[in-house]
């Protein structure tokens, strides 16, 4: 029962944390670009407004896809440990690969629903999103694999515990950097916002969304980002308690927003070539270091 | 009694020169009587000889009847009998067929080197005649030239043997020690001379033209005659020359296998494809014969029997198809029985399980391995791989492509015969002893030189 409350807490915290941070992010970006920007709670307004409007539905798979996306994202968000064993809802199932692939359910649901809308922009966006996944996931998974190999566990809360005396980021700085670059791609921040690219393909997958669909998918996106950043924080900046976890979460987020606010967008091949170039090479180098025991 | 095997077809052939219309029934009669004669003297399990004119060997000409020549004669005559059941196929060629039958029987039974040369020449001449069916003159002519050269070489070898031993009797030649250098010459010449009929590369240039030229030649030459020729290879190199020259045969045989399959793969003509395939199979048999042991030779003839049965079916069906359809796509949809028989026979050829070929191929590979020969099985498996390619290609083409032509009349006897033989192939898979028993007896008889010499030179039975 405790686990259920913890899981619920995960959802609530994730929702409010990320939605506020999104607003903060918009504000930061605006300031970097010498604009005033919206208030930090703007995204709450957006979501609730969207939810309250009368939407259009493009068939049952559209509805089903949205539900699947949101359900998958929430399921993942419920598993993710938040920075300590205490805040781990399900210590027996928080295996990294489980989280990673459960996460894919939501992504698949979204992709399916959006392509089901019958809009070609959505299809193009999904095609780009999947290709992008091929880009950022590979270096990321290699880095995570070397981490798992190093700590001999894939259980996130154990990884967090093992970092009590020092962050993994400091053990394998190279890996941390690569994972952060991959995280940028995961979050879909510039320069990796190829799949949505509002100016090119009318926000890609989101083209046909209206009313509550837009709202629900926004919530799904919130949980997705919560999972992604949490994983990074847990794996590379582990240790500490919930408070420290929140601090680290915010720092990572702000860093990502800062970087993205000054960069233009990649083209799809450029993105692939980028990820499969230096980051992938360095990820392998990192794995080699781990194998040879050359960690800090 | 045994000399009747030669005499009856010869006699009936001369009779049918006078009454031409009788040639077909007479041909059937001849082959039928021969089979009956053979059945009455089932597996002599010893060496019986029939000295012509009661000359006691080594003098004079004698016919040798032992397990080996019995089994060979049985197979040879069986295919003549099967052919004689197909009047449409025989056509006007009853007389040459009977002569060929006499010569093949003589070739198998004779115990005399020069006599075997004579029979071989008669085989060549009659075979050429048969090959010229359907106006296939040029290819028949090529066969004649090659056969003539082979005959000359064979004759030269015989003379060398005579010069070095003073005898023409196989048993006597075998017993007499020949100096190694003359033995090399003799065996080399025999290998080349027999190589033409035994379809060894590169002496087998005639095969594709003759087998591919009409419907009768492959059916009879690819079965009976090639069995007779390969019997002689076993007799000469296994019994008479104690395996001298085996390495020549072995080398040529391996090349033959590969060349035959490769050439078959490329063929677009159904008859020629399987002509080349029979070249390759002859290579397998010769390679096995060159091993010289009783088991190896027995397996070789087991394989040859399976191959001959399969080839009979294949050539029968192929001959029918090629001369009744311009375009062979999907013809088996109209001739299901022929098609099924053809498929079974061709799969048996490849050595798929459920069919006879599997039994012989696997045994051969196993025997080769047990003799620590790793090259031959690999060559054979490579060849089988290529074989799979063209056999499947033809089966698919004949069964599944879109058909375009009107249906030709189904030949009832041929279909029945093909089906029965196909069923025989399946039965042999289940009970290999049907062929294997005889073939092993044959192999052991060929390998057992001592018994042969003793049998021919000491015991005298019968006579004419």
């Amino acid at each position: 029962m405790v686990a259920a409350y913890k899981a619920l807490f995960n959802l609530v915290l994730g929702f409010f944390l990320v939605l506020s941070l999104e607003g903060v992010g918009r504000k930061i970006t605006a300031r970097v670009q010498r604009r005033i920007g919206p208030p930090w709670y703007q995204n709450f307004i957006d979501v609730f407004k969207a939810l309250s409007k009368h939407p259009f539905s493009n068939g049952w798979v559209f509805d089903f896809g949205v539900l699947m996306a949101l359900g998958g994202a929430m399921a993942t968000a419920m598993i993710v440990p938040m920075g300590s064993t205490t805040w781990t809802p399900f210590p027996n199932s928080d295996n990294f690969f489980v989280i990673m692939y459960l996460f894919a359910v939501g992504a698949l649901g979204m992709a399916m629903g959006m392509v089901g809308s019958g809009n070609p922009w959505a299809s193009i966006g999904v095609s780009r999103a999947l290709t992008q996944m091929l880009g950022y996931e590979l270096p990321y998974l290699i880095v995570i694999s070397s981490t798992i190999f190093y700590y001999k566990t894939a259980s996130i809360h154990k990884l967090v515990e093992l970092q009590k005396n020092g962050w993994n980021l400091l053990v394998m700085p190279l890996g941390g950097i690569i994972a952060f670059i991959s995280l940028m791609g995961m979050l879909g921040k510039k320069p990796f916002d190829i799949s949505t690219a509002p100016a090119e393909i009318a926000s890609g997958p989101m083209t046909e969304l209206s009313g509550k669909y837009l709202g629900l998918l926004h919530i799904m996106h919130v949980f997705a980002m919560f999972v992604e950043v949490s994983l990074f924080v847990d794996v590379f900046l582990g240790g500490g308690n919930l408070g420290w976890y929140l601090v680290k979460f915010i720092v990572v987020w702000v860093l990502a927003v800062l970087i993205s606010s000054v960069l233009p967008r990649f083209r799809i091949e450029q993105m692939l070539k980028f990820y499969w170039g230096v980051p992938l090479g360095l990820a392998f180098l990192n794995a080699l270091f781990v194998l040879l025991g050359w960690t800090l | 009694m045994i000399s009747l095997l030669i005499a009856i077809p010869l006699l009936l052939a001369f009779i049918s020169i006078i009454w031409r219309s009788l040639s077909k029934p007479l041909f059937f009669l001849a082959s039928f009587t021969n089979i009956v004669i053979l059945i009455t003297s089932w597996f002599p399990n010893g060496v019986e000889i029939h000295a012509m004119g009661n000359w006691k060997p080594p003098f004079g000409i004698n016919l040798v009847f032992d397990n080996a020549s019995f089994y060979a004669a049985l197979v040879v005559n069986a295919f003549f009998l099967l052919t004689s059941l197909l009047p449409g196929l025989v056509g006007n060629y009853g007389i040459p067929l009977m002569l060929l039958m006499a010569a093949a029987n003589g070739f198998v039974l004779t115990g005399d080197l020069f006599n075997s040369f004579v029979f071989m020449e008669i085989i060549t001449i009659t075979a050429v005649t048969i090959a010229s069916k359907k106006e296939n003159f040029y290819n028949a002519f090529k066969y004649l030239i090659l056969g003539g050269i082979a005959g000359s070489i064979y004759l030269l070898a015989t003379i060398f043997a005579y010069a070095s031993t003073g005898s023409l009797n196989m048993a006597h030649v075998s017993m007499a020690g020949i100096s190694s250098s003359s033995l090399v010459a003799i065996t080399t010449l025999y290998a080349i001379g027999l190589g033409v009929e035994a379809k060894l590369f590169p002496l087998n240039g005639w095969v594709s033209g003759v087998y591919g030229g009409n419907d009768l030649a492959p059916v009879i030459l690819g079965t009976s005659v090639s069995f007779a020729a390969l019997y002689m290879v076993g007799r000469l190199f296994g019994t008479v020359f104690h395996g001298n020259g085996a390495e020549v045969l072995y080398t040529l045989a391996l090349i033959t296998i590969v060349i035959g399959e490769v050439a078959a793969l490329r063929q677009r003509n159904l008859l020629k494809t399987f002509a080349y395939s029979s070249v390759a199979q002859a290579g397998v048999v010769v390679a096995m014969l060159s091993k010289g042991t009783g088991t190896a030779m027995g397996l070789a003839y087991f394989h040859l029997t399976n191959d001959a049965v399969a080839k009979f079916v294949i050539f029968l069906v192929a001959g029918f198809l090629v001369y009744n359809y311009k375009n062979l796509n999907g013809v088996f949809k109209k001739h299901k029985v022929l098609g099924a028989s053809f498929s079974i026979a061709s799969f048996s050829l490849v050595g798929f399980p459920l069919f006879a070929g599997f039994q012989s191929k696997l045994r051969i590979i196993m025997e080769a391995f047990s003799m620590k020969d790793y090259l031959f099985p690999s060559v054979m498996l490579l060849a089988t791989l290529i074989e799979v390619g063209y056999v499947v290609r033809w089966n698919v083409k004949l069964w599944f492509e879109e058909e375009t032509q009107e249906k030709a009349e189904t030949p009832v006897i041929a279909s029945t015969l093909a089906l029965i033989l196909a069923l025989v192939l399946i039965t042999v898979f289940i009970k290999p002893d049907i062929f294997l028993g005889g073939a092993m007896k044959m192999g052991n008889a060929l390998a057992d030189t001592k018994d042969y010499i003793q049998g021919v030179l000491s015991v005298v039975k019968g006579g004419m």
Partner: protein
Amino acid sequence: MAMSTLLVSLVATSVVMYFISKASWKIGAILNFLIGIFLISYVFALSTGTTSELGTLFGQKLQLIWTNASYYFSLVSLLVIVSVMLFAIKWLDSQKYPAAFNMFLLMMTAGSLGVFMAADLITLYIFWEIAVLSSMLIVPMGKKESRKAAVVYAVMSASGTYMYLYGAFLAFQRYGTLNISEIAKHMVSDPSTGIKATIFLLLASAGIAKSGIFPLHTWLRIAHGNAPDAFSAVLSGQLVKLGSYVLMVSVAALPSLKIFSNIPFYSGIPATNYFLIALGATSIIIGTLMAIKQDDMKMLIAFSSVANGGYILIGIGTMDPIGFEGGVLHVFNHALAAAVIFMAFASVVYRTHTKKISELGGLIHKMPITFLAYLFAIISLAGIPPMSGFISKWMIYQALVRKGMFITAFIAFFGSIGSFLYVFRPLAGVFLGQLPKKYKDVKEVSPIMWLPMVILVTISLIIGIWPFPILKPIEGMRMDFGIAPTMKIADSSHWLIKGFAGNWNPVLVFNLFLIGFVIAYILYTLFPRPKKVDLLAPHKKEGAPINIYTGGEFIYNPDLYQYNTKFYAGFERMYEKHPSWEKLLEMLAKFFYDLGEWVHGWFFRPSPSAYTFWVTLTILIVFWVRW
């Protein structure tokens, strides 16, 4: 009924089946299905360790034995085959040769079961060939290209098979036995590594050819892509697994870790196994990259079978307890997923007569059940929970990471992410999007056709949530092969699957997903109901526009707005000019053809002069050599 009786009577029945089906193919198909059901019950009833004798062949006893491996593989095979048999009851009415199809399908079933039951290498070979032969005769029943496919399939398969045969006889010659377990014993004590490695690789090559591993993978595209549509399900779901079985026999039943303990290559894995793993990894790369760019949906999944064969091989090849179980479980997962996918495609082709993704679209409006079956199957194929496909991938990753095999792991990850891409392509191109006008009257297939898909998908889902029934025989196999017998991976009392690095609870994960879905649904119902946008409006009324966002324009021809040609254009462009192994093999085939032409031209066609020349030359050479 003894196993030998069963197999022999199955082969015999298959011939009878031809004549029954000739009278009425429907009765034949139904009988086939009933026989299949009987076989499943038979398989359940057999107890491990049962032996049976088939007869003797050249003094060697042909023996059958029922092991955990036989049970597992037979069950997986039968699940696929029986589903296809059910599917075929209706589907066969679109086929030209229903009688022959029934016959060969049954014969192939007998062959496959025989392979799994075989206790010695020759029995295995015999049944193997029966399965190959009968399946090879079904392949050309498809469209025109399937003729060539049959030949390519036969030759590729044979090349592996004959290497296997050579290896089997090499083993027999050296150890004097063909029995697999005895050979295993002899091999452990045999000091000569070279010969052992040769035997090992030769035996494995049959599996390599059959399961479409790298150098011999090209037949999958052409055969799976062109075979009769429902039979592709058997080819990919079942026949390919024969190859996995042989690979398992050569890697695990002959205990490669012990046999090759003197040639460790990396992290305790012998060089021989590593060689196979490298081949498997190459297959994953090739299979994934090629699948992503296919426009022909059947060929796409054929390439995915290449990639998944690679997973299986990698998993088994590590001989790590988790990896081994993962590899073996992947057999089950891929079998079910591929079978459902191919049956779904068969349904699509049955209705639309095309297998080109770019000619299809929007079929979800017409064939929703087929769509759902496909959807769940690809979730399993891509290895996403809660379907069973995830479990095996998870296990394989565990093993790879544990062994520190980062490059292999990288390739496995690549194949996994790549699989999202390629399974999505038909989903988007065939089922989603705009329905072309010519398919506006297409209907869902009959229940007989969708029922087997639904059943298989349900099984896959149930196993994904509660995998312990299927893990039990796999653990049994692992014990049989003595791979870390003390280790326990499936812990059904705690609902856990234990890896070396952390556990997970499949039931919990499924429930979380369910809860998430329920919450999402509650949210969904809380807010205003949507208005429907009718995507089929132009089909219903001529000239009616479709109400989707296109920058202010109305759409009157939705077909033109279906994005399914070159779905991943951006990525495909990056490896357009890839080297083609298939072309290389074609060149090899052409070389043999040319050689044949050359031989024919030089030795067989020419005039008597040339014949004389060759005879003379031969005499001279032979004399020269011998003197």
